[in-house]
């Protein structure tokens, strides 16, 4: 990664009234939304997402970039859908599912990881505010790894390049709260992370702040 203190997306996060997945009811007639959020999730990241709202559900695409990096060797892209599986008044259980692509380049290896992300979000979704539990699981199903010459020289010359199955998975549990002002929602999310084997990851928590604009 090339070090840079502020990315384009961080600047957007500061400049635009946008956020992550909405947790309040959208204004009537909403067909689309744009979100940007900034925070700590595996790394200090910025995320930008576009959602197309279809009936009670939505289709979305989300791009995640570590803040310190602008060289596009490290990013995540997911594109999927979300539906309210259960609804009673303002109480909802949202279910989301998306294929995920994660890329990285570091001193020891290049990786392109393909996986899936699923999440359950039960909670209250009102017109002015909402609060939801978010339970997520991201599983890397297949990862192509290429080890660097540095890794081969200072550590293991016999490291194998190629497609690896099931290199990892991350569990997520937290709360997502939002406050709506017209077409703008401000969202705060925080919780804990662990590997799928329930081992600690660094950092073992996440927190993001963002805004969304519905139109």
């Amino acid at each position, binding site marked *: *990664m*090339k*070090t840079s*203190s502020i990315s384009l997306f961080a600047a957007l996060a500061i400049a635009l009234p946008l956020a992550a997945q909405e947790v309040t009811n959208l204004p009537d007639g909403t067909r689309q939304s744009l979100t940007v959020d900034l925070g*700590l999730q*595996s*790394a*200090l990241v910025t995320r930008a997402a576009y959602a197309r709202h279809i009936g009670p559900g939505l289709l979305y695409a989300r791009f995640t970039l*570590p*803040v*310190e*990096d602008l060289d596009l060797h*490290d990013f*995540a892209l997911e594109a*999927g859908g979300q539906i309210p599986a259960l609804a009673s008044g303002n109480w909802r259980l949202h279910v989301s599912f998306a*294929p995920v692509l*994660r890329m*990285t380049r*570091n*001193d*020891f*290896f290049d*990786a392109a*990881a*393909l*996986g*899936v992300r699923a999440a359950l979000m039960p909670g209250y979704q009102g017109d002015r505010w909402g609060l939801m539990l978010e339970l997520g699981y*991201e599983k*890397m*199903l*297949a*990862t192509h*790894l290429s080890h660097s010459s*540095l*890794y081969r*020289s*200072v*550590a*293991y010359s*016999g*490291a*194998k390049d*190629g*497609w*690896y*199955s*099931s*290199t*990892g*998975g*991350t569990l997520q549990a937290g709360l997502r709260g939002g406050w709506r002002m017209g077409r703008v929602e401000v969202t705060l999310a925080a919780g804990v992370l662990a*590997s*799928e*084997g329930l*081992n*600690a*990851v*660094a*950092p073992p928590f996440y927190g993001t702040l963002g805004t969304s604009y519905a139109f």
Partner: protein
Amino acid sequence: MPKLLAALVALSFTACLDPAEEGNLVPRTAEEDPSIPQLSFNGATFHLETFGDPAAPAIIVLHGGPGGDYRSLLRLRDPVDGVRLEDRYLMVFWDQRGTGLSQRLPEGEITYDTYDRDLTFLIDHFSPGRPAVLLGHSWGGMYASRYISNHPERIAGAVLMESGPLTGALFDEVKSGIFHFDPLSEWLNDYVWAESIISPDGHARADFLRGLGSVGDSQPGYHLSTSDREPFWRMGAVAAAALVKEGMVDGKPAWDFTRGLDRFAPPVLFEASEQNTVIGVDFQKKQMGFYAHATLEVIAGAGHDFPWTQPARTVAPVLSYLDSIGF
């Protein structure tokens, strides 16, 4: 989307490499590969090599970490003015329990006590009936001091190469300088982002990730060489975590490896690098105070990795020291 998911799942099942399998991301360990020099004792198989006359006085080498291995100490075998340590002594290089190419073990089998018993075995095995000399780098210096504290009668002398903090209190004094935890730092982002792709589940993946964490500029105050990097075979993530955890009480560093060191009669040689601004010369001068008889040698033009980058400057004082104690 169903076709894409089906393709993903098919790729997952047909991808031929298992990240948990030894030999893919990280090398196999001694109990899995009989070609690796090894010795089994105390219920585990260790990667171990000796150099020199088996009847000569024994020097047991203790590598750093915890969780490192002895690959970066092998230049200590280089000759100084035509003389090698192994020309006069039996040099015992080994990867500590659960690290390097030694067998991987559950966390419960990695304790200060098992480390203590492992070293006792090696001294009895390679130096039967007479005390040995310990030569420890970084964590290895801490390991040596703890052992001397418990078994002074088994030790004829010690070389502590820029030992890590011998007490939790000393660690507290320098902890802010040991690791550079800037959330925008390249090494930290590389590590945590990689962890979202490769989970630290199981020894192979955890060791692989720990290696990645060690290669970045996580310790700028240590002034490690980037043009002549210290090599390693394989980090021991579980071992490192277990030993660090044992030194903590209520999340605070609480170890004390100094009890009784002031009654240890033989002189001890400290070595410190000129460039390390965290646990270099000034810090080692503090640590020398725990011993009754200690001298300091400063390794010019080097950082904490001086046994690798400056082996001649490192070994020359060791040869003189060993002569001086009649070993």
